[in-house]
């Protein structure tokens, strides 16, 4: 079967790049599953997109990020890039404390003291640090300004659309709310492998 050019173009319009053989196999599988009932192009496109959300971009090997992004100290990224979040961690708080919380082994007694309260310290505002990939190039994304659609419970493998213009310093994208659109999905092998606990453990 020939690659469905219209689906390919439709994916590109969403900044999604996939290899031809993957797309071919995907469409074949969908047709089998649905016994060729998906006649409308919209329906087929939608089904392919669903599959893409659940695929592991590391396996697709279809990079889209420019190479200079990580080699240059400072780089302005423009345009849209559909990427995968491999993991994320809040870098505004100590990982050790976060890990105790995840493990449920926090103990309030550790805070009990007869000393007067320490001088006031600003309350940290969350800053998520995302490990992003296009399947080949790994890049980090920092929550430079608050991004409400992100949270610590996002599953590994979730897909995200990064929309320029974004400044990238030393391989770190400085993300603001309108640079990020959460697409959804997950990768079950990554979900099993990368629990919040192991992400923190790695950070530690």
């Amino acid at each position, binding site marked *: 079967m020939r690659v469905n050019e219209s689906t390919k173009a439709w994916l590109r319009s969403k900044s999604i790049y996939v290899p031809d053989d993957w797309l071919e196999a995907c469409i074949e599988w969908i047709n089998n599953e649905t016994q060729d009932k998906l006649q409308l192009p919209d329906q087929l496109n939608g089904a392919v997109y669903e599959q893409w959300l659940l695929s592991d971009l590391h396996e697709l090997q279809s990079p889209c990020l420019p190479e200079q992004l990580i080699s240059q100290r400072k780089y302005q990224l423009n345009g849209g890039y559909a990427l995968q979040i491999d993991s994320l961690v809040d*870098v505004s708080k100590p990982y050790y404390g976060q890990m105790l919380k995840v493990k449920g082994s926090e103990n309030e007694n550790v805070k009990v003291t007869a*000393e007067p309260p320490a001088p006031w310290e*600003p309350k940290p505002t969350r*800053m998520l640090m995302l490990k992003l990939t296009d399947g080949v190039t790994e890049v980090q994304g920092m929550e430079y300004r608050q991004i409400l659609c992100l949270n610590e419970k996002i599953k590994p493998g979730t897909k995200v659309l990064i929309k320029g213009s974004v400044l990238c*310093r030393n391989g770190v994208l*400085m993300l603001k709310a309108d640079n990020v659109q959460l697409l959804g999905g997950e990768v079950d092998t990554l979900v099993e492998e990368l629990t919040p606990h192991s992400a923190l453990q790695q950070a530690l």
Partner: protein
Amino acid sequence: MVRILNVAEKNDAAKSIAEVMSRGSARKREGFSKFNKIYEFDYNIMNQPSTMTMTSVSGHLLGLDFVGSYKKWYSCSPVALFDIDVEKHCPKDFQDIKRTLEREVRGCQSLIIWTDCDREGENIGFEVIQVCKAVKPNIPVYRARFSEITPQAIQRACRNLLPPDKNTSDAVDVRSELDLRIGAAFTRFQTLRLQKIFPEVLGDQLISYGSCQFPTLGFVVERYKQVQAFVPEPFWKIKVAHTYNDTSCEFSWKRYRLFDHFACLAIYEQCVENPTARVVDVRCKPKSKWRPQPLDTVELEKLASRKLRINAKETMKIAESLYTKGFISYPRTETNIFPKDLDLRGLVEQQTRDQNWGEFASRVLEQGPNPRNGKKTDQAHPPIHPTKYTDSLQGNDGRIYEFIVRHFLACCSQDAQGQETVIEIDVAEERFTAQGLMITARNYLEVYPYETWNAKTIPVYENGDVFTPNAIEMAAGETQPPPLLSEADLIALMEKHGIGTDATHAEHIETIKNRMYVGVRPDGRFVPGQLGMGLVEGYDAMGYEMSKPHLRAELEADLKRYLSHIYTLRWKLTLKVVLQEQIRKYKEVFIEACRQAIKIDQALSQYLGEAKNLTTEEILDQ
């Protein structure tokens, strides 16, 4: 004339009370115990002139123990100690005191109890009553209630004699019966076992167990392990410095710090490339530093430990002697609200003649004493305060007295006042703030050297000001583990979990030190010893969390709950139920602990070397 027997809790107290009541004219004679004198004087009480005989005990007169031969270690299997009868008896050391009471009560028509007005004192009162009634079954008994040994307080007590409070005393009996059974059973069990399992190290060591002692040890072990498990982590932050008109000031990052180097670096580069600061907010607001609240026991112990470096046990010993000499009010209190009828003016007035704080006291008088009250009251005693001026005290006695006076005066004066300025700047869309503080009135701080408040000068900025910082820096740091427990921290934990009472915190801490379960470092921080560590780990491995506070805290909560609706007919019954329920629970835990005893051996062998493998028979064999 009518003759009345009066009994105080200690000789010092009997002496001071007699002195106050007789205005110094009491006659002294000897009793059988050379430590407990008898003071005699005439006094008008209950509308008649009477001859008062005032003597004392030395704390508890009777002790609780198992009946007959069960006091002996090998008399029975330790588990039986949960069921064997117990009785109160008078230990040898106190027989003389008992004989004095028996002799004196014969010639008296009534008995007035002057023991300390707390629950232990109430219980001691009933021991005195038991001894006296054995001689004179129908003697009328009264209770004098007072919080300090001053003429006013003593006169008030005499005008308002009450019946003694049986309910409070009974609750003390419940606690001590339970402590006896649990303590004896576990102590015998673990001592007999571990002496034989580790004969070289523990051959002749008493390895005591107490239901308060153990959770206290547990807190020390828990914190130690938290410190051990802690993983320090690097972090980075950005600082902005600026000097203006010779005044320099450092702005700190509103994000405080980040735990990712590259994230911080990105923002840092952002700032360095656009290094112009713009003042976006200038806030000035009055700021006060609050004067201390009235002093209760736990605060006294914690503050003396932290500020004077006098440990809780020593502090309470000194405070009790200051109380029995009439210098301060009763030092065992949970109250931090001054009662409305307390003559604060008079108390402050007494302090005006002191060389060091007299002037401050005079100023408090001018403004009128204005205590910053807390929220707690035990309905029995006022907060700890000086009752009489003195400058004759030496050493730690003097330091504790001075602390109590200064704390009292500070509490009755005014909060310190200042003006705080917060400047917020924007550099490359990052926010930084700096704070300045001007102190406008030191007020209570002048008499209270135990606290400091530092002024901080910063340049004057106006909203919209633009400047180039002298430096923008990225600084690295590392997270610190929590500190090991200080004595004051340990007391705070005991209080939080209801382990022991204000009267016993210091003793439990002392016990775990004496047993070598914990050690104290030169900086005053507690570390568990090998034995303490092994015991806690062993019992925890059984899954009962014996070193955790829950089990014991439950009893205290039960007693407190039932004590709050005393005078109900079912009280007696309820108290029995509380006791039986607790005995049952602990007995279950005990049986399980015996079954899993090898876990204690294993835990301890990590620290003490190889454990001997013995059968239960070999262990119980004399």
